[in-house]
């Protein structure tokens, strides 16, 4: 038996990881089938389909933010702006230069990754809690460019993006098809995020976030990990931007403002800081609440703000922490009931 395999079996954490890896792809396929059936049966109206796609977009962006904020503990408020970079790059390539959609999408994701990597590069030179300042100025600069770069971005009026995509003769731009495409993208994203989380790099990122000095003493460069986290997070935001362009087919600066960035941060907190599954569930709950009934009344935003504060004070571990607590309670009760 080779040394690496030995390690995997003998160390408790490594064992856990090996077990996870075996069932994750199967789980992904099962989730896709169940999700597709649920969407087909229960989500039929146009409004419900749009809500589902909004949830998918936020889930993808939040999965990326989860690497930056949940794992590396860097507070980023540029995630929405990074999404905008990807969406606009793709939109401009398609609308003005008639580039084939998948190629434009790849270019969008690449552009988003580069912008986010820039934030990581600046942050690499300074202390971690300055990350919020770096992302604030990047987000502000991008927002200003979107509004003032009239000729390129369409300014405050935004731009229309004609989307055409077909696979095996099947039109993928109808709402029915896009919902399934979105579901597949989220599940692939979830799979990647979970794999990254339990990989060697993921552990290093989490360690760099938890304790800089401990990371250094383990031979992990925290600064390098901040950069890696920024790159990974930016790529996820890029994919979210691509899905956004395909779904909405209209890009305006107001969709990528600070509110959206804060919503994503909130999703990660509710999801339990570092748990991909928690983040996807939180994306569904928070997106539904913030776009659904909270928009109905004028006191909605007030409830939203109060909710953030209460959540932080009362339930700091988020949904994942709550679920973990319930799981622990039930297993202990169960073990007490079992005859020994």
């Amino acid at each position: 038996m080779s040394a690496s395999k030995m390690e995997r079996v003998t160390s408790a954490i490594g064992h856990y990881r090996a077990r996870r890896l075996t069932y994750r792809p199967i789980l992904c396929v099962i989730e896709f089938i169940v999700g597709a059936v649920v969407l087909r049966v229960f989500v039929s109206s146009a409004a419900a389909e749009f809500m589902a796609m909004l949830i998918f977009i936020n889930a993808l962006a939040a999965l990326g933010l989860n690497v930056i904020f949940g794992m590396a503990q860097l507070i980023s408020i540029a995630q929405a702006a990074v999404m905008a970079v990807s969406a606009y790059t793709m939109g401009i390539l398609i609308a003005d230069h008639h580039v084939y959609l998948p190629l434009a999408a790849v270019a969008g994701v690449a552009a988003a990754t580069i912008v986010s990597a820039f934030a990581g590069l600046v942050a690499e030179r300074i202390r971690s809690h300055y990350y919020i300042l770096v992302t604030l100025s990047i987000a502000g600069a991008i927002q200003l460019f979107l509004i003032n770069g009239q000729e390129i971005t369409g300014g405050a009026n935004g731009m229309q993006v004609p989307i055409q995509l077909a696979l095996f003769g099947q039109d993928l731009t109808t709402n029915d098809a896009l919902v399934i495409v979105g579901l597949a993208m989220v599940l692939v994203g979830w799979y990647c995020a979970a794999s990254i989380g339990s990989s060697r790099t993921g552990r290093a990122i989490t360690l760099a976030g938890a304790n800089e000095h401990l990371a250094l003493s383990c031979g992990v460069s925290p600064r390098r990990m901040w950069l890696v986290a920024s790159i990974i997070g930016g790529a996820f935001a890029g994919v979210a931007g691509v899905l956004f362009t395909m779904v909405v087919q209209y890009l305006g600066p107001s969709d990528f403002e600070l509110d959206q960035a804060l919503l994503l941060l909130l999703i990660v907190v509710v999801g339990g800081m570092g748990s991909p599954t928690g983040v996807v569930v939180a994306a569904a709950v928070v997106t539904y609440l913030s776009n659904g009934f909270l928009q109905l009344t004028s006191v909605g935003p007030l409830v939203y703000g109060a909710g953030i504060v209460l959540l932080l004070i009362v339930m700091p571990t988020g949904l994942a922490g709550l679920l973990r607590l319930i799981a622990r309670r039930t297993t202990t009760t169960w073990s007490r009931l079992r005859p020994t």
Partner: protein
Amino acid sequence: MTRILVESIISGAAAGAIYGLIGLGFSLAYRTTRVINFAQGDLVTLGGYFTLWFVGRHLPLALAAAASMVSVAFITALMERSVLRPLYRASLAYPILATVGLSIIIENLIRVFAGPLPLYVPGFFSGVTEAGGIRIFNSNIGILVVSMAVGLGMVAFIERTNIGRGMRVVAHDHEVAALLGIPANRLLPAAFAMSGGAAALAGVLIAPQLTLSPSMGLSLGINGFTAAVLGGLGSMPGAILGGLFIGVAENVAVLYAPPGLKDGVAYAVLILVLLIRVQGLFGEAAGRGRLV
């Protein structure tokens, strides 16, 4: 051309003095608790609205402004005591996110009680002074004098008084403060109250220039924030100087660049400071900068 330049430098300095007041509040709160207070901009707005409310209760303008400063200071202290204090033990992200929540709450409370429409606020100063062909609004001079006086007064307070010394010790090291018997649990709300008072004064002074609207806090907050970072996050005189620099840079930039890019000056300064000199003008490299 020189005349226009001088005029815009003076009006920029007035705006900058206000950014300096906001940044000073940021710095004070940041140094004592390490929390970046995202609600600072909304406290500025709140100060303006409170003044308007007190004026509506037939108080003279000066008294209304003072009452508004006291109210906002009290609310800020309450914020620290009730919301932020339980969160210090957790990761730093929690209190910062909580201030974001508080900012949303304040903005929407204003929207519910005062309505979303912009409101006109009476100013302290009126008229124009002309000297050597240069026209200066009296309001600009007034803003500059008042905010400089209050800002430097606060710096002196932190420098000279026992309460100020206590805050500096708490800012330097919480454990040492505890060993010396300094009541950090009472000084932290006091520091936040001062920061809220500075924000409210900024609101009182800037409201007549901008007209008051619930969402005006964000851009003011960002400018104040940049002022604080430029001066070295945590240094109070640095924040005042940083504010002056940004205000002047903004108003001069408008002469040479499209007006839409005015807001970009703050972001550009912020990213340049982060790239070139993170410690700002007066901060120390390791981040354990002095409060004064």
